[in-house]
């Protein structure tokens, strides 16, 4: 359906997209994952024909974006990072205008607009000026604009930014609903979103493709980081003493504890090793009862951070001493997510 080959975009000396290639099949939802400035928006802008690439080709349904721009643009609906809205128009006027420039037939226009307003839940706002809408509603009007004309491909650049949790769920439902008849590409830096919605995940960093797979396969790809989180009743010193005797533990980190007399620790061991029993017996020996124990599963966040960090490590060829630090940073993010 969509085929991107060797895409390169240069801004002077800076390379925003670096030989990116991927394909999207009909009816798929492709998630574009990457840190800020990874080249997500640039890639989307190129696919939609807003920008040109320095090199490489993009074809949609076998049609090249540069050779037949008007045909390709007919097949694509696009919600850019900032929804392209005219503040002085009402929602209805705006959607009418969009339907007109997207060449929706006059006879179908009225019905299509009311259907789309229903789907994006903006019917109540139809006579309000866009400048008076909240960010969440503006985002929905932007989404309505992208769906207008029911194009085969819908490209959404961070569609849930600025929405409240309830709206995020609604928009995700809507995207899933749309994927029945449309091919969708969406970008995000929120991992749960991608794992909740997408069939395929594409991780890019610094314009390069790092990984492409199904979200559920991603962790297999990398192997899990073996590890445990435990809460132990007792003093820090004896607990650490006892744990240090276990050879298979590579690294121990102490986390903040909210309870008096309870130590929270994160233990790291090699991937695919099970140290749960050993930890249990050593704690029994030290007479410090375990209150909680939890295996660390690699979430998409971890995978994402790991992959992007590995890139950095490879690139700068930093010696091995630095690696624990990267693990530490994963840890912090993990904590942050947990706190949320």
């Amino acid at each position, binding site marked *: 359906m969509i085929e991107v080959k060797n895409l390169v975009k240069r801004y002077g000396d800076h390379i925003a997209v670096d030989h990116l290639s991927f394909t999207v099949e009909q009816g798929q939802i492709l998630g574009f994952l990457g840190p800020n400035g990874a080249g997500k928006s640039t890639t989307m*802008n190129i696919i*939609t*024909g*807003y*920008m*040109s690439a320095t090199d490489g080709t993009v074809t949609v349904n076998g049609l090249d974006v540069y050779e037949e721009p*008007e*045909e390709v*643009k*007919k097949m*694509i609906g*696009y919600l*850019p990072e*900032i929804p*392209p*809205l*005219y*503040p*002085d*128009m009402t929602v209805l*006027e705006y959607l009418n*205008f*969009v339907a*007109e*420039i*997207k*060449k929706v037939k006059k006879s179908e226009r009225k019905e299509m607009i009311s259907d789309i307003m229903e789907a994006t839940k903006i019917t109540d706002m139809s006579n309000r000026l866009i400048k008076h809408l909240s960010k969440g509603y503006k985002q929905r009007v932007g989404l309505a*604009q992208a769906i207008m004309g029911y194009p085969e491909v819908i490209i959404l650049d961070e569609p849930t930014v600025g929405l409240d949790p309830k709206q995020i769920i609604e928009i995700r439902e809507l995207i899933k609903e749309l994927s029945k008849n449309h091919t969708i590409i969406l970008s995000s830096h929120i991992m749960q979103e991608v794992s909740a919605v997408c069939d395929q995940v594409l991780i890019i960093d610094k314009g390069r493709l790092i990984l492409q797979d199904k979200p559920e396969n991603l962790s297999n790809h990398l192997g899990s980081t073996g590890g445990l989180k435990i809460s132990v009743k007792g003093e820090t010193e004896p607990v650490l003493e006892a744990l240090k005797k276990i050879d298979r533990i590579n690294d121990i980190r102490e986390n903040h504890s909210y309870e008096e007399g309870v130590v929270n620790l994160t233990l790291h061991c090699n991937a695919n090793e099970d140290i749960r029993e050993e930890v249990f017996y050593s704690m029994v020996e030290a007479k410090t009862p375990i209150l909680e124990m939890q295996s660390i599963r690699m979430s998409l966040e971890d995978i994402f951070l790991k992959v992007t960090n590995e890139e950095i490590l490879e690139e700068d060829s930093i010696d091995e001493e630095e690696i624990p630090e990267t693990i530490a940073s994963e840890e912090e993010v993990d904590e942050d997510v947990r706190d949320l």
Partner: protein
Amino acid sequence: MLGIYKKELRNYFTSMIGYVFIAFFLVIIGIYFMIYNLFFGLANFEYSLGAVTFIFVLLIPLLTMRLMSEEKKQKTDQLLLTSPLSASSIVLGKFFAVLTIFLIVMAIVCTYPLIMSLYGSIPYGSSYGSILGFALLGGAYLAMGLFISSLTESQVVAAVISFIVFLFTVLMKGIASIFPTDNKTALIVFSVMVIIICLLLYKMMHNLTVSIVTAVIGIGGLLGVYLVKPTLFDGSLIKAFEWISVISRFDTFSVGILDISGIIYYLSIIFIFNFLSIQAIKKRRWS
């Protein structure tokens, strides 16, 4: 194109600029009409129009400044450029919308000679001929303003640059008459112009060979002509500046002559600047 046209036209009337422009334009023309035609009793409406050409400098930037720049600033150009519209239909839709506002003024002005006809016999031909010329002159300024607006993201910058350029076209005639007429100065000035154009080319395309080749061909051609037939340059500087001076072409209309070459001149200016605006939009993809 029709969608863009309707949107722009609606925008002029929801944002008041349309009303302000029409009202202000009519007030100024009305004042001159009163003084020349009603108080002094001149039957020639073209004299009044000849005297009010300066208001283009003040009013056209007001109308054109936001046409393209605002789209870029609000990022709505992403909607337009990713929709199945061609760059030319975007530009032409906008141009015809802004032209419509101006033609509303012209339509009202068309009734003035009829008002005068109540008091005596009126030379309709020269009156309406000059209104036609005036409308074309306005169209040329609108196309220029549209092009300038497509170069920047800021309405203010667009307005200021348009104002300066328009002012220059008005003052050009006066400036041109003080230039020396000898052919050496003409050669130097033209060469400097070629160099400036090449620098602009380099800035836009970042291609050194193209700019240098253009410069060499341009200056070489000028030198060649100078060596072979230097008399060609006699007084050419003044002619060139008068040619750029959009407003001086209206002089023939304002003395009651229907100047076909003037009509063609204005139509070409309109065509060239619309073409340049389309190119400016297309080029944006590549930057």
